[in-house]
């Protein structure tokens, strides 16, 4: 009865909401449309006056230039790309694995020190790697990892947000499942692999997206922990070339385009599971 009275008004405002979101969405998309447009612009369109926003005659020239220019330098672009893929892939895999292993006891066991450990993880949600670059550098060099892939991978594996989200998701799994497992005589080890891991699969998608985006876009680790050019990653390369002005705008836009596509694709692929995980992201103090 009440619903009916709302109905007409609701549709009216709904129309405005969709209009508003579409307008702002278009506006938000402008820089990305511009990026794609620039990446495919032939050089004469990059320098015309007045500048044109959209590409008229799309070409792959910028991508060719990018790969050729890089082959002319000492390090081909494919090397940066390979480093990025390798480092991101391994980091994401282990972030998910370590987070899964740690979230089960943190959520379902009552061992001494549990609350303190979880409290520490909550506090570390406020942690920003940028703030402790120097000591991190000292730790990495003390461990003798300088200029290795490990130096690019291990520090990123300490990813509190990932563990936090997994643990919150695990909290939603009823304890009875594990009680039943115990009665059936399953060991903790078996329950971990057979019950806990499959149950938190939706949370994996979220951690994959967050961890992948963080590592894939991270230029800082390369700058800090590696010296030789063949150990650097794609975002580091981009951070060094972007200052070279408009002359390379086309090729740099092409490189940025290549850098941006994977993160967007991964998000679109995993989006559905992400929202189901994020629902439990709240911090209850």
């Amino acid at each position, binding site marked *: 009865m009440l619903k009916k009275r709302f109905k007409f008004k609701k549709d009216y405002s709904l129309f405005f909401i969709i209009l508003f979101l579409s307008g702002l969405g278009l506006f938000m998309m402008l820089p990305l449309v511009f990026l794609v447009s620039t990446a495919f612009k032939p050089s004469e369109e990059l320098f015309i006056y007045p500048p044109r926003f959209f590409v008229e005659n799309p070409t792959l020239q910028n991508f060719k230039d990018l790969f050729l220019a890089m082959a002319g330098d000492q390090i081909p672009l494919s090397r940066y790309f390979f480093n990025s893929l390798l480092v991101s892939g391994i980091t994401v895999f282990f972030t998910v694995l370590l987070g899964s292993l740690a979230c089960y006891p943190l959520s379902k066991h009552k061992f001494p020190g549990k609350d303190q*450990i979880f409290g520490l993880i909550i506090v570390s949600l406020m942690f920003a790697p940028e703030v402790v670059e120097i000591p991190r550098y000292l730790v990495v060099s003390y461990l003798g990892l300088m200029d290795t892939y490990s130096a690019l991978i291990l520090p990123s594996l300490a990813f509190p947000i990932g563990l936090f989200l997994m643990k919150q998701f695990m909290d939603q799994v009823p304890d009875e499942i594990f009680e039943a497992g115990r009665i059936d005589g399953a060991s903790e080890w078996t329950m971990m692999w057979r019950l806990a891991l499959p149950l938190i699969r939706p949370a994996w998608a979220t951690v994959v997206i967050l961890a992948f985006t963080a590592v894939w876009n991270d230029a800082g680790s390369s700058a800090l922990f590696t010296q030789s050019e063949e150990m650097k990653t794609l975002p580091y390369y981009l951070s060094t070339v972007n200052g070279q002005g408009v002359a390379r705008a086309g090729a740099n836009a092409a490189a940025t385009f290549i850098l941006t596509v994977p993160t967007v694709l991964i998000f679109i692929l995993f989006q559905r599971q992400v929202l189901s995980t994020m629902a439990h992201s709240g911090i209850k*103090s």
Partner: protein
Amino acid sequence: MIAYRFKNLMKEVWRWRVSYLLLSPFFILFALFIVIPTVTSTALSFTYYNILQPPHWVGWQNFKTLLVDDEIFITSLMNTLYFALITGPVGYVLAFLFAWLIHQIPKRFRTFYTTIFYVPSLTSGVAMAVVWLVLFANDSYGYLNSFLIQAGVIDEPIQWLQNIKYIMPVIIIISLWMSLGTGFLAFLAGFETINTELYDAGKVDGIRSRFQELWYITIPAMKPQMLFGAILSVVGSFKVGEISKAVAGFPSPLYAGHTVVLHLQDYAVLRYEMGYAAAISVVLFILIYGIGKLCFAVFSSKGE
């Protein structure tokens, strides 16, 4: 007595040995790359340390220099606060507002709009500089200048990335564009979990509009997600630096885009004054932690 307690505790620890084993891989890395660096930073901030010689103790000297004599630090602190006080709250409110608006539309359209608003946060701030440098270019070849000149708003190009009045606003705009991230997703998901019976009950109690619904029902029910989003927002807005470096250069004109993180990098990576840099990081750490604690106090869900 104490010995007896200790023995009991050890018994408990042994009983849960599998839990510790499962926790250990994450926790070892967590200790190595988060706990130890934080403690080391604090310790080093009281020393003079240049990497080549062992650190020697100087007490509060670094902090004195930092807060009294280092004008550039004060500039960077002011810039950071200016940035954080705008970007943090505005980005946070925008994330909440857009999530709420998206939640109002039918399910089948939600995915599309969520993706559109979230994608900017997936981009790399440093890499996107290629776009910003052209959009905000200082001459009339810059797209924004060209657009404004053609629209008759301005007569001559504005030096977006040179004029100290505009550097920080440009960095803020770029950061806001990228700010609909994890918190935004948390809000979206949070709206989905609110028990719809609450809304029906609210209607019976005389709630008439969407905004009343939002204020009296939705926001109280969303406190945990809102706290999570607030924490991420605070941290994100205080560690500003990379984007400034990418669009305004380093150092920026008259330090107009200088931030605490950049000041830290300056002393750590370029001058090798590690003790001093550590003191900067401690100040930043205290700032983030203090404001984070404030968020906890604001959102602590008492009486639920």
